[in-house]
């Protein structure tokens, strides 16, 4: 593995021996075995692994929407016991309210947080402008393309200045070209709005392009198979994907992910 590049700072979140078991038709299924890792303040962390490795379950636990069956999560020194007002989520589908305009959709979290909308309209509009949706503030989701809808969803996840941004395979429903553009756009956006991000994906190249650090999840029961620091600084361009270092790291990760895949196929849950 290449030497680690940016120095990790303070841990914003500590995942401590977290396990999740749920019952499926009365039979207990282990979604997450027992995982422990820190998430550093301001870092872009990607959870990589095959389907059923517990990536999304872990993300839902970080959102406070699922409770761990064992262990616990420390968020900024406090034990996480439910949803928090300072977390933003982006799902695979944009999940916008179809009857509200792009701008109203971006403002939606503030409505739920019972904040006055007027002081935030300008900032929300600027967010939309910054993702290339300057002319689309008043359009409804049906009038936007898939990529545009997902850009609205990203703005919505940032509008209330969350400390933690959770992204569950946000670009996997998009075509390859749009996906590349969205990766670049997200990297640029996070330059301006620095956030701690936990990103879930199947795509190794996407993970390497975006992340400061990658956790490969897998095994039976599922755990952390590799914890890899990505040795590239921020402000990355698409050209990075053509460099030897980038492709070497992708190949190494691919080896680990393939092992995880093989285990998943040999012992399906």
């Amino acid at each position, binding site marked *: 593995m290449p030497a680690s590049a940016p120095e990790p700072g303070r841990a914003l979140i500590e995942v401590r021996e977290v396990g999740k078991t749920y019952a499926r038709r009365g039979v207990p299924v282990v979604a997450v075995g027992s995982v422990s890792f820190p998430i550093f303040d301001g870092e872009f962390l990607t959870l990589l692994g095959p389907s059923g490795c517990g990536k999304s379950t872990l993300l839902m636990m970080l959102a406070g929407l699922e409770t761990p069956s064992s262990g616990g999560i420390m968020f900024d020194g406090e034990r996480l016991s439910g949803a928090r007002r300072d977390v933003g989520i982006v799902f695979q589908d944009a999940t916008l309210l179809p009857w509200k305009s792009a701008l109203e959709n971006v403002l939606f979290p503030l409505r739920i947080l019972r904040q006055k909308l007027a002081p935030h309209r300008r900032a929300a509009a600027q967010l939309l402008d910054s993702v*290339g949706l300057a002319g689309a503030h008043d359009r409804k989701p049906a009038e936007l*393309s898939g990529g545009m809808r997902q850009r609205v969803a990203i703005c919505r996840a940032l509008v209330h200045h969350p400390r933690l941004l959770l992204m569950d395979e946000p670009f996997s429903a998009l075509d390859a070209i749009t996906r590349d553009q969205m990766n670049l756009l997200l990297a640029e956006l996070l330059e301006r709005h620095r956030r701690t991000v936990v990103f879930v994906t199947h795509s190794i190249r996407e993970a390497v392009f975006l992340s400061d650090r990658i956790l490969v999840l897998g095994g039976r029961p599922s755990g952390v198979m590799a914890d890899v620091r990505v040795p590239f600084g921020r402000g990355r361009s698409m050209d990075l994907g053509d460099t030897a270092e980038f492709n070497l790291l992708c190949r190494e990760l691919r080896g680990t992910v393939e092992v995880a895949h093989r285990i998943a196929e040999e012992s399906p849950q």
Partner: protein
Amino acid sequence: MSGVSETGVNEADAGFVPLASSGRASDRAAAVLLPCGFAVLVLLGWEIGVRLTHVPTVILPPPSAIFRSMWDDRAILLKHAVPTTVESAVGFLLATVLGVAIAVLITYSRPVRLALYPNLVFFQLIPKIALAPLFLIWFGIGSSSRLAFAVFIAFFPIVIATASGLMNVDANMVRLCRSLTGTEWQIFAHIRFPAALPYIFGGMKIGVTLAIIGVVIGEFITAQAGLGYLIIFATARADTTVALAAIVVLCIAGLLLFGLVAAAEHLVNRRYGVR
């Protein structure tokens, strides 16, 4: 990035052009003129056919006679149209309030859902008209029995449509609200209810026609007023022309009530439409 936006807009534009304005003006004119022309043609055929074959008026009066009766007997027709329309409207409104309220209960209470929902779907299948005479026994021969029966048959499509609308929301949208510490009330007010509105109006449109049927059935069985009563009264006296005139007025009343629901839907769509 602009390339994506361009394609995105164009694709979207192509996708949501409303049907009515999709073609040229001549297409739009045809969409209005063809059905109207066909209806006029049928009425003309009826008029000419009846005159040529000398069918007795008792069997089938010509449309001209029906329209003349509508004008000549306008006072009587109006007198009977009022109770039918009012009872239908009140029955429909009660059915809507009751239907939406029970749908909310079904959505939020698992025991209520398990106990009620399968039974409601089963009841949907019963020919409820057969129960009309029983309502007279239970509620007497006044307007309360007709109202109760109208509510009874209009209620089912509304409750079932509303419940499926309230339950058919994007699970991730609900997760998003919960992740922001949103309350169940906020999830209902901001997501479930607006998302269910198209379903509710779908149920209401079926419900309003059923409410009218309920009231007319009630009037058939026992009433001293109303268009259903007038139809029975006129046919008993072999006055087919007046019976048919009453049926035309019934159609107009039905269109009026249906139109009010459609107008309400249009108003709501301005705020909660997806386009």
